[in-house]
């Protein structure tokens, strides 16, 4: 495992550039703050939802558009093992409220000076090690449940992805209008 530790420089430079921009944006967006993340789940601050849904809609238009135009060859859809996705997602949601950051925003929060995020990152490394040990037991029991492979909703429902993207965009914009008119005014500290 240690013979081939480091990827080629071009790949690393791409990773560094992506991380710099991503970290910069996450902090400017406010999602490196414990208060913002936790208050999303208390319906007191909808910054996380606004950021994620905007990223999803904008990202979808470009990525599916490039796919259609033949500019990219393939998507990177993760396999659906619905029991694992759902239960893992639930465990993740609990951890996110306890820590107050998700993996990416914890790294960014550490950069912006939040020391509790640093402690969380150490916890995350231990969590990763624990899952590696637990994987054979968990995946043999839950892996086969709802195993649909690498499917999108466009595949599953036999509809054009553009119909789904249009629906998603309309739903997101409607939600934003409602939240801006009626939603809570987030705290600023």
């Amino acid at each position, binding site marked *: 495992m240690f013979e081939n530790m480091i990827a080629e420089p071009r790949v690393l430079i791409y990773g560094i550039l992506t991380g710099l921009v991503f970290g910069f944006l996450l902090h400017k967006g406010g999602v490196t703050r414990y208060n913002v993340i936790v208050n999303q789940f208390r319906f007191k601050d909808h910054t996380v939802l606004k950021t994620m849904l905007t990223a999803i809609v904008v990202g979808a238009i470009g990525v599916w558009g490039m796919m259609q135009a033949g500019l990219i060859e393939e998507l990177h859809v993760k396999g659906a093992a619905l029991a694992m996705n*759902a239960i893992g997602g639930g465990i993740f949601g609990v951890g996110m409220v306890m820590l107050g950051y998700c993996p990416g925003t914890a790294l960014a929060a550490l950069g912006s000076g939040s020391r509790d995020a640093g402690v969380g990152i150490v916890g995350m490394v231990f969590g990763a090690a624990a899952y*590696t040990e637990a994987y054979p037991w968990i995946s043999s029991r839950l892996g086969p449940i709802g195993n649909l492979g690498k499917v*999108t909703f466009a595949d599953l429902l036999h509809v054009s992805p553009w119909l789904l993207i249009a629906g998603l965009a309309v739903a997101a914009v409607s939600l934003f209008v409602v939240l801006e008119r009626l939603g809570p005014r987030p705290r600023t500290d």
Partner: protein
Amino acid sequence: MRNPLRIARWSPYVVGAGIGLLSWATFYFMDKALGTSTSFVGAAECAVGLIAPEHVESSDYFLKEYGAKGGGFKPILDWQMALDIALVAGAFLAAWLGRDLQGAAAPSVWVERYGPSRIKRYAVAFAGGFVLLFGARMAGGCTSGHGISGGLQLAVSSWTFFVSMFIAGIAAAWLMFGFASRTNKEAAPHV
């Protein structure tokens, strides 16, 4: 107009659109989708591998994530690990330019509910991080890999994760903080 780099917080819509555009770039130039949590497995198994390399090399999960097709292993210091490390620097830059570096040992929402004890906050942060990454690996991704990248690809796995994460997070927030409203206080702009 003020220099936007000096402004502490940007609109979530601007930032969301920026992350969306960043996804275009990772797909087009790098043939990659944004993600952050797999590298924590790489980091953890690197540490385990210093003591017991044969244990890591025969681990099903390590092979699943880092096994190379023709045998051997993929690099641990890869695109995503570089991204993860640079995330720290990118956010530092944003906070420093915006004069917005965070100094408090414990965040104010936490302190209002659980008091100023640093030990208590760090203990829960450690446990939370443990639970978070365990869940992320079980689900096959986190808020970036599933939430953003999978969401924009309309992946069934990712939307399942997203919905489940929100439901569990709301329940956990209710258990940890209750729904006793401090809305008036929190709505005050000077707080």
